[in-house]
């Protein structure tokens, strides 16, 4: 029964209790979509396993996941390049060394989180490029760690 295949008759029966609002439309939809009625049991059925799915397996917290585009090369030496796309998960607690997205100075920035000086009353956002400055954050106003970067997507061919 696992691979129960509908045919016209049992679909019709299922419809028995439902008020069909526009019969013509309903019938035509059935014809269009129910063309799989005569199915042979496939020998592969017993080996069926769900297809790998990035959304299912890589986005662990869909409600907390957001996307961002990298602009500039401040994280170049960490392998994050201009034009790369990243996946941000707000459910993941950032730790020392995490790549975080932070709201800083009126915009979003992506940097390494450095908690070495937390006890001294400040934290640092470190770029991965010697041409860029380290941000020292000692005032929680107008600063927020917005999320943690968990994946990088780089596309090589036109899609």
């Amino acid at each position, binding site marked *: 029964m*696992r*691979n*129960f*295949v*509908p045919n016209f008759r049992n*679909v019709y*029966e*299922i*419809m*028995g*209790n*439902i*008020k*069909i*609002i*526009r019969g*013509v*439309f*309903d*019938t*035509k*939809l*059935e014809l*269009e*979509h*129910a063309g*799989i009625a005569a199915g042979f049991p496939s020998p592969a059925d017993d080996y069926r396993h*769900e297809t790998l799915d990035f959304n299912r397996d890589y986005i662990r*917290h*869909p*409600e*907390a996941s*957001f*996307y*961002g*585009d*990298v*602009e*500039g090369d*401040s994280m170049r030496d960490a392998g994050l390049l201009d034009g790369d*796309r*990243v996946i941000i998960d*707000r*459910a993941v607690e950032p730790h020392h060394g995490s790549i975080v*997205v932070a*709201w800083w100075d*009126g*915009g*979003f*920035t*992506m940097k390494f989180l450095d908690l070495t000086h937390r006890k001294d009353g400040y934290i640092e956002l470190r770029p991965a490029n010697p041409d860029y400055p380290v941000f020292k954050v000692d005032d929680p106003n*107008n600063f*927020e760690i*917005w999320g943690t970067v968990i994946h990088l997507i780089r596309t090589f061919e036109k*899609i």
Partner: protein
Amino acid sequence: MGYGYSLDSHFRKDIEMYGIADLDNCYVSCERVFRPDLKGVPVVVLSNNDGCVVARSNEAKAMGIKEGTPYFQLEQQFPGHKIAVFSSNYELYGELTGRVVSIIRQETPAYFRYSIDECFMYLDGIELDHLQKWGENLHKRVKREVGMPISIGLAPTKTLAKIASKLAKKYEVYKHCCMIDNDYKREKALEWCPIEDVWGIGRRYAAKLQSLGVKTALDFAKHHKDWVRLTFNNINIVRTWQELNGEDAVPNEELAKKKSICTSRSFNGMIPDIEGLRTHVSNYAARCAEKLRQQNTVASIVGVFLNTNAFREDLAQYWNFQERPLITPSSSTITIIQTANDVLQSIYRPGHQYKKAGVIVMGIGPDSPIQQDLFDINAEQFQKMRRLDEVVDRINRMHGSETIVLGSQQYTKKDGKGKADVFANAIKHDFKSKNPTTRWADIIKLH
């Protein structure tokens, strides 16, 4: 103490508890997710066409900005003030509130989404001793993961839960979750709550009650049931009175009728395939559209849910609900069917036996002049349009909003002369934020 019901006697371990989760200043909170700099700043959101204020941050409320203030009067009334102004962006609000509901679904045994910013929860099975902590954690999770604050009210009736949520919103000491679980707390809460703020008491009844000397919810609850019955001769008012006294009286089905329209059925048997489900969902969607048109309203959000049979413990269980905003609020059968089927496509997982499906339309407002023609359903045309739409949508998704629009989607320009090229130019929304959760072109930029 009121007549008849003592809450304390109701508070056994097995008592059913209700919760309500209210999204605080919903539209403003959505806008702030991607604008952390607007924390602590007066923010308002305007109605369609940027006509008047429909949502206000606490700071804007404290300044004295009233709901419904016409936009052009803001500057006259509050000269020299910095107010962050947004056009309404239902695409964003629909997506973000959907995330909140999704978290609530994971955390509660059962829930009912009552409106875009309120969700009732049935908390059967969570121990009473743990409920307060549970609610505080739910707030923390939503705040951290989606970035939006919610207020939670917990009580043995829906009407009391609603009052508790108002307390949770108003006083920080509750840590965003207020539970009414004994008569002392109940009376304190009722005393605090003006009669016109009680859920289910309309403006008309509130005026009548006030004229009879009933100022607070407690004044009302202390009247005798017969007095309530004789004065109003209205079952809903009696139910409200019962609920204020701790007796669960508003039927859960009543909820669905208010701020959303829901059409759903359990199937006669189970359905495993998407083709079968599509037929049902299309019919439910058509029914919702019909109801919308009957009351001359349009919806801005279409949601679909899908259930397996919870009683068949031998089968794999699956439950999902998702929703999608409509770019133009609509009551058109074709639009609502299309959207419902798109949602079905994204929540459907093969390999399950489905028992129930339903379509919910929300964000209901009066029919506006921008409505498209309502054309009757023609199956062939529907199929063709759907295929065309799929292509168009894909291109729009990948290359930014409204790269391609259909001829029928051409709108009259704002000044009324000629055709506007895209919908965005047909209604006025000069201060609309981006859609970082629904359009790739709008995702946040990281420097």
